[in-house]
Structure formats: structure tokens, C-alpha cells
């Protein structure tokens, strides 16, 4: 099986991917406004001069939208076609794109989801599943 596409690690997202190794979902939080953001970056977009810290998320969120890929763009995803990608709003505020575990047909907008981690190559990738499922 072809390799899954890997993240481009930079100084700002390295703590995020390191936390994924511990099965923790973390985002940065602005010291001035208290707002959280993703993807990781050197300063707070809400107050670039302010301090910030990393916070661990609850792992809970909501599906805002989703798509199903039929076109192969990555060799590593070829065997997963058709696979979904979903736009998720974390309870802490930030939006991110991820995958929903399970059938594409079971996804709906507004659905509550929670994080889990899947090994893809060298990284633990945070994906989501229906919040009620064990």
C-alpha cells in the first residue's frame, strides 16, 4: 500500500503533531482574547502582540460540511476511494478539516462528533467519529 501523505512539519505545528502522538488534540489559545485557532502559527491572529499557550481540546465538535472524493489525488488514499473529508467546528471554536470514521452515508451536517486517532505513516492523525459511538 502506498504511503499516506504526511504533514509538512514546521516550528509552529510540531507541538500539535507531537501531542497527537500522545492522543491529545491541542490548539493554540490567545492570552488576550481567549480565542483558540488552528492551524498553528507564530502569533495570535486575534492579537498578534499577545502571549498565547497550547490548550488541550475536549475532542468534541460538530460537522459543518463534508465531501466525498472519487478522484485520486494521493496514492495513499487510492484504496480508500470514495473517502470523505469533513469540515469540523471544534467545541473550542476553531475549524479544521478531517475525516469521519465509518460510512460516508451516515454523515450529516450538524452531527456531533468526537476525536480519535489513526496511525498514518509516521504520524497519529486526528479523525472523528459520531459522538454516540463507542
Amino acid at each position, binding site marked *: 500500500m502506498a504511503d499516506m*501523505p504526511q504533514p509538512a512539519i514546521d516550528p509552529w505545528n510540531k507541538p500539535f503533531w507531537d501531542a497527537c502522538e500522545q492522543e491529545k488534540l491541542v490548539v493554540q489559545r490567545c492570552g488576550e482574547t481567549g480565542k483558540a485557532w488552528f492551524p498553528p502559527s507564530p502569533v495570535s*491572529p486575534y492579537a498578534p502582540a499577545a502571549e498565547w499557550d497550547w490548550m488541550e481540546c475536549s475532542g468534541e465538535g460538530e460537522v459543518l*460540511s463534508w*465531501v466525498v472524493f472519487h478522484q485520486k*489525488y494521493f496514492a495513499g488514499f487510492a484504496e480508500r476511494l*470514495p473517502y470523505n*473529508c469533513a469540515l469540523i467546528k471544534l467545541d473550542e471554536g476553531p475549524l*479544521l*478539516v478531517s475525516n469521519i470514521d465509518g460510512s460516508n452515508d451516515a454523515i450529516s451536517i450538524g452531527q456531533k462528533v468526537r476525536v480519535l486517532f489513526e496511525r498514518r505513516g509516521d504520524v497519529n492523525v486526528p479523525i472523528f467519529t459520531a459522538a454516540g459511538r463507542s
Partner: protein
Amino acid sequence: MRDKVCVVGVGNTRYGNFPETDSYGLGAQALVAAVEDAGLSFKDIDGLIVNRIPSYERFAQMVGINPQFCLPTDMAGRFASVSLTIAAQAVASGAAETVALVYGNNGRSKRMLYGGAEGGQWNPWGMTSPGATHAMMWRMHMDRFGTTTDDLGRVASTFRQHASMNADAVMRTPFTLEDYRQARPICEPLRLLDYCLINDGGVAWIVTTPERAKDLRKPPVYVSGYAQRDVFDQATPRDDFWYPALQEVAGEVYDRAGIGRDEIDGLMIYDNFTPTVLFTLEGLGFCPQGESGNFIKDGILELGKGRLPANTNGGHLSESYMQGWALIAEAVRQARGECGDRQIEGARAIQYACAANIASSIIFRRD
């Protein structure tokens, strides 16, 4: 800014698969056509903007010009309008008198891929390609407003019908809504016919002052007004369909041009994917938000039928994906009355608009 600058020349190559040339060759060919169209000589050009041509310096060498104003612009299609407005500002300020803007793209013969590039933010999840971004936004739009993929199909089939009247268009065979429904899914909810056509091609425009335009070959087409809003605050596909940004653009562009929305005779809408057409109609206020599906369903965008013919060259969906450049050339030709079978009768004011993270619009006017 009103009417201080005009487009006096436009030119384009054919569109298709041309491995025998490259973006320099395509750009040069388009510029030769634009210079001829304007009735200018290359010596008259004292400003140069290039897009998707790797080196502005090499390009200027090739066409033998030493301008006093020169700029390469970012390869994203949203930079078609940005390039034109920067040229307009240079001319209006006196930094240059006659600016050539040149686009050359050999993405098809080079097998340029829009999706799957290394380093993408969402690659570990398989999320890639502009098409997927628009698919994600359209799903939200359908959920929130009850629009459907058939609404997209009507956009696509309308533009194909227009392309059937354009010898430059790559795809000219009309299709029905049923054909659209049968097209293979690429990234659901979008299908093949929702996607633009990657091709090789070149487009050039020449802008100058109204005074300089007086003794040139073609009637000048004024850059009557323009407006732009940049929205860079979401790393994901946007959840607002660029509506607030486009509303702000609409709030300025008509005032700046000095005409109302109801005086617009035709639209050139950046159609990299069908949803942007509907987002644009809503954002600019041609219909209320969420109503674009109903708004277009009786053919308002169709040439010879509706009041607002759109993308009369076939647009990116059926002519070729020239990233806004060919749409603006079409706006100029429509305002001049040069479009033959696909001419919008009596066209005087044509509006270009792009729904993207740089949301923009330009109104072109003949008089």
C-alpha cells in the same frame, strides 16, 4: 477612479494542448494580438505586468521593451482583477501611460495538477484541490438554503450553450440537465461538469489613459469602477460563501462606477467551479442570499433570453480556464460590440466579478 483608465487592446491565443510552445510563447502571441488590436506599437508600452510567466525580465527582453513600471503577479486566478486594478492605478497616477498585461499558461501540456501537491495543510486527511473546497461550500449552501446540484447543472449547461457560439471555446457541444446529472462525480457533491477546463493559452490586455485612447484603433472601454475585499481569516473552506466580502464589494463598485446594478448588461463571473457563479449573484445582490437557484432557473443568464447574459464566451467551464483573463477580454469585446453571434444586444456596461478569498469586481463601460 471613475473612467480614468481604459482598455484599448485585447488579444488571445487559441486554447488547448500546445507542447510545442510555453507560457512565454503563449503570452507573446497574445500580446502581439493585443498590440495589433489597439493599433499601438511595442514602443508605446511603458508598463508591464505578467502572470504565470516565470520571468518578467526574460519576457520583456523577448518582446524588446524597457518599461518604467513592471510587476509579476501571483499565479492565482483571483489576481486577474488585482493585476488590472494595479495597472489602472499606475496609469491613473502617471507612473506609466500604457501598460501591457500578459497571461501565459501552459498548465495542460505540463500536466499541472490542481490538487495533490506536497505540503498542503490538509494532506494528511486527503483534503486537496480547489474543487473539493468548493464542493464543501456548496454542500453547506444546499443545507442552509435548499439549493440543489440541478442549480449548478443549469449554470454549466447555460455556459456550454454560450460556448457553442465561440470558435475559441474548447468544449462546444451543448448538454442537457440530464447529461449533467449523469456526469461522473469528482468530489461530491460536484461532478465533472462543475469543473473548469485546464488548458494552455495566453491572454493580453493593454490599458492607457482616455487621452491616449482617442486616436487608437478601437473604441476605448473604460474601467469605470472596481472594488476588492480580501478575506484571509479562515484556513479551511469558508463557511460564509464570501457573502459578506462580496456585499462590501457591491456596496462600493456601483457607486465608484456611477451606475446601478440594473444598468449592467452582462456578467463575466469567475467560474472555476459552478458554485461560485451562484455565490457571486447572491453576494453582489442580484438576488437575495439563498435565492440564486430560483433566480437563474428561468434562464436569466442565457444569451438571447435572459436579462443578464453571463459568461458569453463559455467561461472557464466551457471555453477554457484562463483564470479570469479571458473573461475580462470577453467583457471588453462585449462592450465594444464585437462578439458576433454571441453579442449581447446593445451592451454598454459589463461587470466582472470573482468570488474568492480576494473578492473583487470591475465594471467596464463603453461610454
